[in-house]
C-alpha cells in the first residue's frame, strides 16, 4: 500500500530524475538550491534536542547513587548501579519476559495475520464487519481496555465461563472453581498441579499480558498482510493454480514468499512494541503478582514511583533499555537500506 502511494508522484516526471553527473550543471544547481538548515531546525531541536538531552541526563543520573532522588547531593559513584542491575534477578526476569513476549507475539501475529488476510481476500460474507472487529483493538487505547481485560480473565469472568461450559472447569465443594479431574491430573503430571483456573497468578500472569497484547496488535499485522497480498500479481496465482496447486499450497508456496518484506518489517515493529510495553502490564497486573509479569517498562516505573523512588536506579535501567532500543533502530535502518534497491528493481520490472 505504502509502496504504491510513494511511487505515485514519481511516475509522471521520472525521466527528469536528478541524474546530474556533469559537474558544471550540478555545481550550478547546488549553488542555486537554497539552504535548508532553518527548515529542519525546529523539528530537529524539539525531537533530537529533547530526546538526546534526556538521554544525556539519564546517563548522568545513572552514575549517581542508585537511590538518588532530586534534592539529594549529586555525588558521582560510577557504574555501581549498573552492577546492581546486572546482579538483580528482577532485571533479567523482565528482560526474559520481553524476549518471550517478542517471540510468541511475533509468531502468533504473523500466522494469524496471514490467515486472516488470506481468508478476507477470498470473498467472504460480511468481510468489512470482520475487518472492523479485527482492527478495532488496534485503535482503542490499551489503557481503556485494560479494566475490561481484567474482567475477561477474572476468576468468574468470561474465559472461565467458557471453559466451564466446555466441561474443563468444575465448581468444587467449597464453591471454588477448579479443573475437572482428568485435567488436574494432567497438569500435575507436567508439574503444574498447583495451577488453579485463576489467571492472574504468578505462573500465568505473564501469559495473560502476552495474550492481551497479541489481541490488540493482530489487527495491525492483518492490515499489513492484507495490503501486501493485494500487490501480488494475480497472474502468478493463476499460474500456480493451472499447475494444479490447491489453496493451501498456493498460500504457502506463492503468497507467503511474496510477503517476506512485510514479515521482516513486522519483526521490527514487534521488537519496538516489546521494548515499549507498559500500559497493559501496568494496568492489568501491575507487573505482579510477585513481579511475575514484570517488563522493563513497568520495572522502571515502579523504581521511579513505587513505594520508595530510586531515580538513580531508574535512570540506569532506562539507559540499558535505551541501548536495546538503539540496537533495534540500527537493525531497522540497515534492513530499510537493504530493502530499498530490491523494491526499485521490482518497480522497474513492473
Amino acid at each position, binding site marked *: 500500500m505504502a509502496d504504491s502511494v510513494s511511487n505515485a508522484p514519481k511516475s509522471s516526471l521520472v525521466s527528469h530524475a536528478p541524474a546530474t553527473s556533469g559537474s558544471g550543471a550540478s555545481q550550478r544547481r547546488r549553488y542555486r538550491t537554497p539552504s535548508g538548515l532553518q527548515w529542519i531546525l525546529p523539528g530537529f531541536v524539539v525531537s533530537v534536542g529533547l530526546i538526546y538531552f534526556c538521554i544525556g541526563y539519564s546517563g548522568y543520573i545513572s552514575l549517581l547513587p542508585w537511590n538518588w532522588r532530586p534534592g539529594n547531593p549529586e555525588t558521582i559513584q560510577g557504574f555501581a548501579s549498573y552492577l546492581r542491575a546486572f546482579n538483580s534477578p528482577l532485571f533479567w526476569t523482565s528482560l526474559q519476559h520481553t524476549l518471550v513476549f517478542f517471540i510468541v507475539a511475533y509468531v502468533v501475529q504473523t500466522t494469524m495475520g496471514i490467515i486472516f488476510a488470506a481468508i478476507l481476500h477470498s470473498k467472504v460474507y460480511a468481510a468489512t464487519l470482520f475487518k472492523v472487529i479485527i482492527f478495532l483493538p488496534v485503535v482503542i487505547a490499551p489503557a481503556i481496555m485494560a479494566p475490561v*481485560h481484567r474482567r475477561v480473565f477474572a476468576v468468574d469472568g468470561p474465559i472461565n465461563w467458557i471453559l466451564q461450559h466446555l466441561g474443563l472447569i468444575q465448581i468444587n465443594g467449597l464453591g471454588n472453581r477448579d479443573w475437572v479431574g482428568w485435567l488436574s491430573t494432567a497438569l500435575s503430571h507436567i508439574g503444574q498441579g498447583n495451577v488453579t483456573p485463576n489467571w492472574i497468578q504468578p505462573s500465568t500472569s505473564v501469559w495473560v499480558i502476552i495474550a492481551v497484547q497479541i489481541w490488540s496488535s493482530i489487527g495491525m499485522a492483518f492490515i499489513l498482510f492484507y495490503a501486501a497480498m493485494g500487490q501480488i500479481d494475480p497472474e502468478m496465482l493463476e499460474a500456480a493454480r493451472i499447475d494444479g496447486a490447491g489453496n493451501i499450497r498456493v498460500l504457502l508456496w506463492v503468497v507467503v514468499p511474496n510477503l517476506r518484506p512485510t514479515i521482516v518489517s513486522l519483526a521490527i515493529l514487534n521488537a519496538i512494541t516489546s521494548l515499549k510495553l507498559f500500559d497493559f502490564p501496568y494496568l492489568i497486573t501491575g507487573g505482579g503478582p510477585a513481579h511475575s509479569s514484570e517488563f522493563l517498562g513497568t520495572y522502571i516505573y515502579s523504581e521511579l514511583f513505587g513505594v520508595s523512588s530510586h*531515580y538513580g536506579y531508574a535512570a540506569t535501567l532506562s539507559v540499558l533499555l535505551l541501548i536495546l532500543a538503539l540496537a533495534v533502530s540500527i537493525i531497522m535502518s540497515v534492513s530499510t537500506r537493504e530493502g530499498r534497491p530490491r523494491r526499485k528493481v521490482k518497480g522497474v520490472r513492473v
Partner: protein
Amino acid sequence: MAVLVIPFVIPLFTMVQGSLQGIGWGNYTAVFQLDGLWLYFRNSIIISASTIAMVYFLTMAASFGFSKLRIRNKELFFWLMMGALTMPEVVLLTPLVITASKVGMAGTFWAVIIPLTALQIPFTTLLTRSYVDGIPDALFEAARIDGAGTWRQFWSLLVPLAKPMAVAIVVLVLINSWNAYLLPLVMLGQGSGNQVVTQLTNAFSSQYRVDETKILAGAVVAALPEIVAYITLQRFFERGMAAGAIK
C-alpha cells in the same frame, strides 16, 4: 472465520455486557454525572490537536529541508534523528520528571505535548522524507526559476503534493496521542480536571472501592469516540496505520 473472530469479540462483548449489570443503565448515568466528565475529553482533545499540529508542521518543514534543500552534513542530521526512532517513552521519564519540575512545566499541557511531539517526529519524518524524495526535484527547480521563494515552494508545492502523507501523520499521531497514558499520568498528575480520556476508568476505582460495572461503563464511554471515528473513517485509519508501519 466466525470462529476465529470469537476471541476478538469476547472483550468487546464483556465490556458492554458488564457495563449493563447491577444497576443497568444507571452505570451510564453515573458516568455522565461524573464531575468534570467533559474535562477528560477536553484535555485529550487539546493534547491531541496540539500534538498533531506541531508534528505535522515540524515534519513537513523537516522533510522539505532534508529532501529538497541544501544542508551541510545532511545525512548526519538525519541519522541523529533516526537514532531517536525507537525510543520508548519510559526511558525519558526520569529526566523529564526532573526537568519539568525544574522549569516549572510540570502539570501543564506542554509537559505532555512536547515529549509526545518529540517522540513522533523521527518516525513521521522518516516516512514523509521518503515520500517527498519521490516528488521530482524538477518541479521545485521550475518553481524556483519562475521566481518562487522557499516559502512559496513549501506552501504551494510541497504541502499540497504531500497530502497523502498528511492523512498518515494525522491518523498515527491522533492514535498515539489520544491513547497516551503514561505521559499524561506522570506529567499532569491525577488531580481532578487534569486527567485525560485514558484515565476515565480510574474515576471509579480507589483504594477502598472498586466499582466494576461503572468502570466498564466508563470504558465504553471512553472508547466510543474512537470506535465511531474508526468506523466512519475506516479507510483512512487503515491506510494511515499501514503506511506508518511500513517504514
